[in-house]
């Protein structure tokens, strides 16, 4: 296969992604007031955004960006090689274009010329290599290390950056859009991770960890149709009531993570719009498939039938989400298995599976904390109430939020967890469902699933690939150790003054973390 063929293959893949995400966009029905605000973008103003996250220990180091606050602010300060567009397709950012070798093992990114850092230095391929290398290798302390581990070699070649992978991966450019992998200025092949410099649309003026960030527009930004606000102020307001009050009293213009318990009341406040975006974010209850009784697939199936998914969507998400079907793939993703039977609450089926497992009743402990996802404790209580009808007694154990990911997740045999979702099916499955993957939270190791995953990764025939992904989803739903009862929308709110694009990114919260450079004052 010549390079040319692959390029077309890549193009058709992108085309496919576009048509598929159009579905998602159609599902997004915006309230009239929002559409009114959708005039032409214009420059000016100081946007003030309040985030539910942000911590006094936050750092400028890209290895550590763990919350929407630091992620959003650094995405405004920096650029990555590629960008996931609001419609879910992939577009170039620092990389102008890219192409792969026939086996999808070697990728060549052409670096955009004429882009400069805030300090005035040009962005060079060497900067890109140093920035990616910061996350790689033995010494890496980066949360993104597992993403860049498949890179065998990365080097600059003229205006290009050439990446060699240990195995073929047709979706590799999507990985380069990850928010950790920003391009920072380098010297002697190393970046200074604590630099305040960047090449994004906004220049950092001040950063007080856990309190606020102030930024001003980068006058030399290479994108002409982005970065509309003159100044940006980001606040960390962790308390839900305080955040909503700040919006109501006009002290901020936008808030993320609206408290769903009071969203109906907030909607009634004059001049306030609630903005729900359905994405791939899903909340899960995960079992350790190595440990009894979860090692028996009948027990896992019983629990999957013992949960009232619709009630969770109604009461925990207040309707701002969709029922899940135990697969980590969103309905708007291209390879979503539309023919898989939707599991519903069915105590009889749950009892049947228990009997198959040789049990009359089942007593288990479910570990939860609201740091797993907002409402996890309540969701656990509802799960427990409903499962009781099937003879499953779930004792809900509230674990301390502090240290949840370290002490409970992947340690306790049955616990709550969440996933922001991944832009591609391959990435989602590889990260959390492939046997032996570091974040395979259910420790599920299915041979057939593993084979299909590797085969699909470098399969370029779309129909064959689809068939593989559909079979994987079937395995996941009917044999996997993860109960995925609901997909939660990202729910934000803003005042009438803020202009929102017609299509809002759903790959992460805050318009794919890019609200700051994509939104404007109407």
């Amino acid at each position, binding site marked *: 296969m010549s390079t040319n063929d692959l390029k077309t293959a890549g193009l058709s893949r992108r085309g496919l992604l576009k048509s598929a995400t159009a579905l998602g966009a159609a599902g997004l029905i915006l309230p009239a007031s929002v559409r009114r605000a959708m005039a032409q973008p214009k420059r000016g103003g100081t946007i003030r955004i309040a985030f539910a996250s942000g911590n006094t220990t936050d750092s400028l180091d890209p290895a550590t960006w763990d919350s929407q606050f630091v992620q959003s602010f650094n995405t405004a300060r920096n650029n990555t090689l590629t960008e996931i567009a609001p419609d879910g397709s992939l577009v170039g950012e620092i990389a102008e274009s890219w192409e792969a070798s026939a086996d999808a093992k070697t990728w060549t990114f052409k670096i955009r010329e004429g882009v400069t850092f805030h300090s005035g230095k040009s962005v060079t391929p060497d900067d890109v290599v140093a920035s990616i290398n910061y996350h790689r290798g033995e010494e890496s302390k980066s949360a993104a*290390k597992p993403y860049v581990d498949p890179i065998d070699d990365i080097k600059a070649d003229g205006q290009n950056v050439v990446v060699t992978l240990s195995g073929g991966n047709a979706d590799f450019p999507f990985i380069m859009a990850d928010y950790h992998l920003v391009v920072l200025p380098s010297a002697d092949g190393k970046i200074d991770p*604590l630099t305040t410099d960047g090449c994004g649309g906004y220049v950092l003026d001040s950063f007080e960890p856990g*309190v606020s960030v102030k930024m001003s527009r980068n006058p030399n930004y290479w994108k002409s149709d982005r970065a509309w606000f003159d100044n940006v102020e980001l606040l960390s307001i962790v*308390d839900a009531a305080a955040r909503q009050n700040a919006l109501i009293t006009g002290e901020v213009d936008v808030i993320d993570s609206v408290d769903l318990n009071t969203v109906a009341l907030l909607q009634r406040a004059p001049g306030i719009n609630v903005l729900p975006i359905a994405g791939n974010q899903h909340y899960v209850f995960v079992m350790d498939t190595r440990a009894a009784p979860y090692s028996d697939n009948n027990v896992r199936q019983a629990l999957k039938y013992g949960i009232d998914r619709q009630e969770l969507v109604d009461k925990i998400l207040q309707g701002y989400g969709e029922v899940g079907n135990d697969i980590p793939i969103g309905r708007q993703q291209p390879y979503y298995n539309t023919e898989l039977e939707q599991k519903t609450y069915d105590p009889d089926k749950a009892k049947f599976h228990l009997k198959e497992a040789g049990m009359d009743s089942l007593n288990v402990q479910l570990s939860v904390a609201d740091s797993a996802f907002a409402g996890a404790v309540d969701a656990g209580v509802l799960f427990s109430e409903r499962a009781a009808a099937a003879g499953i007694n779930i004792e809900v154990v509230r674990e301390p939020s502090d240290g949840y990911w370290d002490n409970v997740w992947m340690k306790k045999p049955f616990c709550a967890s969440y996933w922001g979702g991944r832009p591609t099916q391959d990435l989602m499955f590889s990260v959390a469902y492939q046997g032996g993957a*570091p974040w395979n939270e259910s420790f599920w190791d299915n041979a057939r699933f593993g084979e299909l995953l590797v085969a699909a990764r470098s399969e370029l025939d779309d129909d064959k690939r689809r068939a593989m992904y559909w079979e994987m989803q079937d395995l996941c739903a009917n044999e996997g150790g993860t109960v995925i009862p609901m997909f939660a929308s990202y729910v934000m709110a803003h005042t009438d003054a803020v202009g929102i694009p017609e299509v809002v990114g759903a790959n992460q919260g805050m318009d794919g973390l890019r609200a700051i450079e994509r939104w404007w004052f109407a």
Partner: protein
Amino acid sequence: MSVVWTMIAKRLGLGLLTLFVISIIIFGATELLPGDLATSILGQSATPETVAAIRKELGLDLPAHTRYLNWLVAALQGDFGTSLANKRPIADLIGTRLGNTLFLALYAAAIAVPLSLMLGILAALYRNTVFDRAANALALTSISFPEFFVAYILIFVLAQSGLFPSIARMDASTSFGEALYRTFLPALTLTLVVTAHMMRMTRAAIINLLASPYIEMARLKGMNPMRVILKHALPNALAPIITVVALNLAYLITGVVVVEVVFVYPGLGQLMVDSVAKRDIPVVQAVALIFAAAYVLLNLTADVLSTLSNPRLIHRK
């Protein structure tokens, strides 16, 4: 007077010892918390390799007593080091926040202390009247609401109508008057939280003395009841009142994390809670020591003042 000086010297010495022991307790407790900085920073993204790399770089792989001694030696030389999590010097992190915390504490105290003394004296004077009962019931109601709830109610009533800002943002350019205005709601919340305790103690301490023979005497001489309380009862009731005021001042400095969270006020409490969550031990240690020092100093001041207020204690046999 030399009694007082000896007492101060002795208590300061003990205070230093207290700080030393507290640094061990806090270090030990933070060590006992499951997980460390590496795992809590990486959270759900942790893998064994990255965790090991962070531990190695920050020296978290050293044994606990080595790390404690290293910290102690540096701290004794006045160097509190840098935050492990974001590599900033701890002195910078704490500087402005300490100022903010003290500002809010003094602001609240400036309202609460005179108010509660006045109410306490009036309640003692008009004891068992409607005024006494009403003041008591109101004060008790205000302390039986959790702080964050009092704050929400004040926000609902006073901030949503636009009278005061609902978040108390401060930066270097905020003028003093502006700062008073912005932090009015948190100061009012704290006032409501601490007034009841001080008021009830004032009232109780005064009433406790009213049955004494010398007060009886003053009253029999036909002295005005207000004068009896101010001239004869209050001076002898000062010691317990001063103690409870000092306790509440210490609370205003060290215990207001919830109010800081609700009003987004950058104080030390929030820094401490965040640093505990991230196991950023040097920051936790520094803040804990500031809190402990504030407590020790306030207690000492209270004891000195109580002693000075009572000549019998100065000229002890």
